């Protein structure tokens, strides 16, 4: 009966890790809403939320409570099943991506080596792409099931935008993968730790393309055409109320958190702390410091996302498509070819 021998402690360990990471993602997403409003306010010479708690620190709780208390409305002509499935799918795909992100070096607890990564699969980045491209179904379903023309237009816009930018994103990553030679996120990070320099040094153009595409994938300004408040009336979640709307908004912030984490992992050394050698340290201390470094990098990216949102106005639809198809994809392709040529030349 060797088939039924299960490492129960392993299961418990992973379960705890999943719970912790999901709650951390939700917490970060929650406080991203607060941060977003603060950043927006500061950039417009205002103060932002300041009433709920010191510096408005309890504002997300108040927002969440408000969303829970709102009346749940189903448009009478909507497809109920898909109408509910839409936000659930958006939320689920947003949460699923965090499974392959290596948060830090392993912890040593009770004689066990606890990896701070839910699943170190050897196709990690491919998994991320697979899940992220599922995310568009949340938008599509929500927009279609609402049975509202604005929602439908916005869903179509969102879908075509995400599909266009996913191409460039994938192409920009191919160059990076040629450099690293691995799809596993942990391997990519470990390589950067051992090299001592980050992948941004060898792939600046790749990073730029990836970053722009990440903005587009998260539906953030300047690529928020699918929710364009002033032309599409809030877009695909126009008919949503209560926590279903909350799920959509939350999924956007979780997506932002995860894509920031992925960018930090791929291009900025993940949990690597520059100029600090963590090998000699106590492994637990190293893990905590690494996790903190990773978290700081992620928060910096989230800030940059917000900074861009409150600086740049929305692109027009033709500009968006031009930038995607005629700008980023050729750039990513050239980057890929040049990277390949340089790798071949160096190996010779």
């Amino acid at each position, binding site marked *: 009966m060797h088939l039924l021998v299960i490492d129960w402690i392993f299961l418990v360990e992973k379960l705890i890790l999943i719970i912790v990471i999901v709650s951390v993602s939700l917490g970060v997403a929650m406080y991203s809403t607060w941060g977003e409003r603060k*950043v927006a306010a*500061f*950039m*417009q*010479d*205002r*103060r932002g939320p*300041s009433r709920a708690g010191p510096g408005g620190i309890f504002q997300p709780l108040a927002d969440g409570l408000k969303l829970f208390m709102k009346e749940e409305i189903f448009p009478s002509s909507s497809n109920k099943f898909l109408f509910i499935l839409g936000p659930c799918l958006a939320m689920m795909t947003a949460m699923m991506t965090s499974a392959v992100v290596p948060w830090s070096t392993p912890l040593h607890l009770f004689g066990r080596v606890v990896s701070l990564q839910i699943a170190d699969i050897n196709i990690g980045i491919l998994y991320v792409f697979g899940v992220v491209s599922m995310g568009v179904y949340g938008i599509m379903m929500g927009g279609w099931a609402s049975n509202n023309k604005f929602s439908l237009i916005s869903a179509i816009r969102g879908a075509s935008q995400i599909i266009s930018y996913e191409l460039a994103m994938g192409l920009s990553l191919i160059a990076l993968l040629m450099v690293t030679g691995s799809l596993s996120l942990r391997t990519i990070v470990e390589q950067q730790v051992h090299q001592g320099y980050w992948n941004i040094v060898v792939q600046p153009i790749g990073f*730029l393309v990836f970053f722009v595409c990440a903005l587009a994938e998260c539906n953030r300004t300047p690529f928020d055409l699918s929710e364009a408040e002033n032309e599409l009336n809030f877009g695909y979640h126009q008919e949503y109320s209560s926590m279903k709307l909350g799920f959509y908004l939350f999924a956007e912030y979780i997506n932002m958190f995860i894509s920031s984490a992925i960018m930090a992992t791929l291009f900025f050394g993940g949990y690597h702390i520059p100029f600090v050698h963590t090998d000699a340290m106590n492994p637990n201390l190293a893990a905590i410091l690494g996790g903190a470094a990773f978290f700081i990098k992620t928060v910096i990216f989230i800030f940059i996302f917000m*900074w*861009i949102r*409150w*600086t*740049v106005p929305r692109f027009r639809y033709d500009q968006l498509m031009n*930038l995607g198809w005629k*700008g980023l994809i050729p750039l990513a392709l050239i980057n890929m070819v040049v990277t390949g040529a340089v790798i071949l030349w160096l190996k010779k």
Partner: protein
Amino acid sequence: MQALTNHAKSVDRKPMTWVERIYIWNIAKGMAITLRHFWKKKVTIDYPEVKRPFSPVFRGVQVLNRDEEGRERCTACGLCAVACPAEAITMEAAERKTGEEHLYREEKYAARYEINMLRCIFCGLCEEACPKDAIYLSETFAPANYQRKGFIYNKEELLIPDPKTQPEAYEEAKGKHRPTTA
């Protein structure tokens, strides 16, 4: 056509240069601007706790004045009602009886005095018209109300507190910038 002013600027229809077309440089410039604003002093005033002072010439809600002995100055002459362009003021006069000298300054007084705050345009002409310095515009505004009739202020609401019995309230209602009118 000759332009009447030099405010008009012709729109630049030049095609974008290469630097403009790749957006990055211009976006970076924009981000530098927003970052500068990030550190700037905020202009917000935390309203209920901190209040922005009114200007000395602010014309707020009307106050019916009393003299130093706390007697009402209004003699119900009706000049303010005549001067009022919005016809917001109505009043009824009454004769002062013996024994009421401590209440009213002169032989005639306003038994009823009403200002409709929904009509009032806070022009201050009533203040200018008054020969007895009995009405002036204070430094507060008419607060919100749930009903229309709540905006018709009667004499009790308009009268300034008695300077003899409530000197602090009197000073506050009079405001900082008002010259004392004896």
